[in-house]
């Protein structure tokens, strides 16, 4: 779906020139006339647009001067797009606009709403201007409508893409935050797992741990599951596979803080708990890890 949408966008952005809907020479003239009209009435049309935006209660997260400033930029880019038939500038503007307003909570329907409102406002002004000449009005609408639709599309798609990009970025960040691999001592990693484990997260965890073992040259890993209340069979099995895969990389895993429920699940799926290094809590796990690494921790008083 996403890829398809991207392809559509490519069609819009590659300096597409607006095709004349009728194969006569009047179209360029009509567009020029249209552009001149929009330039001439820039102030009242902008104001009308902003009034309609406020009335429709769109962009409520923004102040009135902010809306007016953005509306002016969109309006001018809009006219340029009509005049030159290229959408690149508008596309870039739509992207930077989205970057600015997405963090403030502006929703997709608001952005689509405002571009559609602009289309309406401009169409009405054309009605008013050409109401005496019906044929001319029809011709100018023929030139205006496809261009306006593409513009609306460009802005809306730009916004949605930006939003998707941000969401992907955030998902990535959350995923990485949720399973930190912590080097606490040379060759020792700690992996505290907190919250709900689903298969997706379990996979993520395995990937991060196995690469963490390589990059940190870890020999011992303590996986602490104190923060996990329960695991289903799939996830528990995944945990076992992770322990086995770590060993193939030369690292020993100690699992600590297994809740009675998780222990029950592990036994149910047939894990031989004798083959798994476990400790009651994180502290016990770290002590065990230190023994494996040949460390001995003693109070300073005793050492001196």
């Amino acid at each position: 779906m996403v890829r398809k949408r991207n392809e559509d966008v490519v069609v819009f952005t590659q300096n597409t020139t607006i095709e004349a809907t009728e194969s006569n020479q009047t179209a360029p003239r009509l567009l020029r006339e249209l552009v001149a009209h929009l330039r001439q009435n820039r102030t009242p049309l902008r104001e009308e647009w902003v009034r309609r935006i406020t009335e429709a209660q769109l962009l409520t997260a923004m102040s009135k001067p902010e809306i007016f400033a953005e509306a002016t930029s969109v309006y001018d880019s809009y006219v340029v797009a009509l005049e030159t038939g290229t959408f690149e500038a508008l596309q870039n503007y739509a992207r930077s606009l989205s970057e600015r307003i997405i963090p403030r909570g502006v929703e997709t329907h608001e952005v689509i709403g405002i571009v559609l409102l602009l289309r309406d406002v401009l169409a009405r002004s054309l009605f008013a201007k050409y109401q005496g000449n019906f044929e001319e009005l029809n011709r100018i609408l023929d030139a205006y409508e496809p261009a306006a639709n593409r513009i609306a599309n460009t802005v809306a798609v730009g916004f949605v893409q930006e939003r998707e990009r941000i969401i992907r970025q955030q998902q990535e960040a959350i995923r990485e935050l949720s399973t930190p691999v912590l080097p606490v001592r040379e060759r020792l990693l700690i992996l505290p797992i907190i919250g709900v484990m689903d298969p997706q997260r379990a996979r993520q965890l395995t990937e991060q741990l196995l690469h963490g073992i390589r990059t940190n040259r870890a020999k011992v890993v303590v996986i602490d599951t104190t923060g996990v209340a329960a695991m289903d069979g799939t996830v528990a099995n995944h945990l076992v596979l992770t322990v086995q895969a770590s060993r193939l990389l030369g690292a020993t895993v100690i699992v600590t803080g297994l809740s009675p429920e998780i222990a029950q699940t592990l036994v149910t799926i047939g894990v031989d708990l004798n083959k798994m290094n476990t400790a009651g809590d994180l502290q016990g796990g770290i002590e065990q890890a230190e023994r494996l690494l040949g460390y001995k921790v003693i109070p300073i008083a005793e050492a001196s």
Partner: protein
Amino acid sequence: MAADEVRVAIKLGFSSGDITLIATAISELARNILSYARQGEILLRTVDGSNRTGILIVASDEGPGISDIRQALRDGFSTSGSLGMGLPGVRRLMDEFEITSEPMHGTTVKVKKWKQ
């Protein structure tokens, strides 16, 4: 060995971890065909789900077939290095697994992996 297949998977945008899983599954399916049917074929194709893309691997042979599929698929992830048919392993490597077999006429295994 499975270089061409892997290129298909890379083109689809699978992660390196998934590509390793896919390549291993293909290797294992090929091994199955070699040891039980001597010859057969493996086809690869991309598949489109409702909102995802994936790879479909079809391994078919005209060998002796499997009389007890349930037995062949019996899972034993705690018995290390079980060297039976490798089919339970392939099933775990992939997202979807389908097998049809007719004694004396051959076996077809279809597996799919979806892009994460």
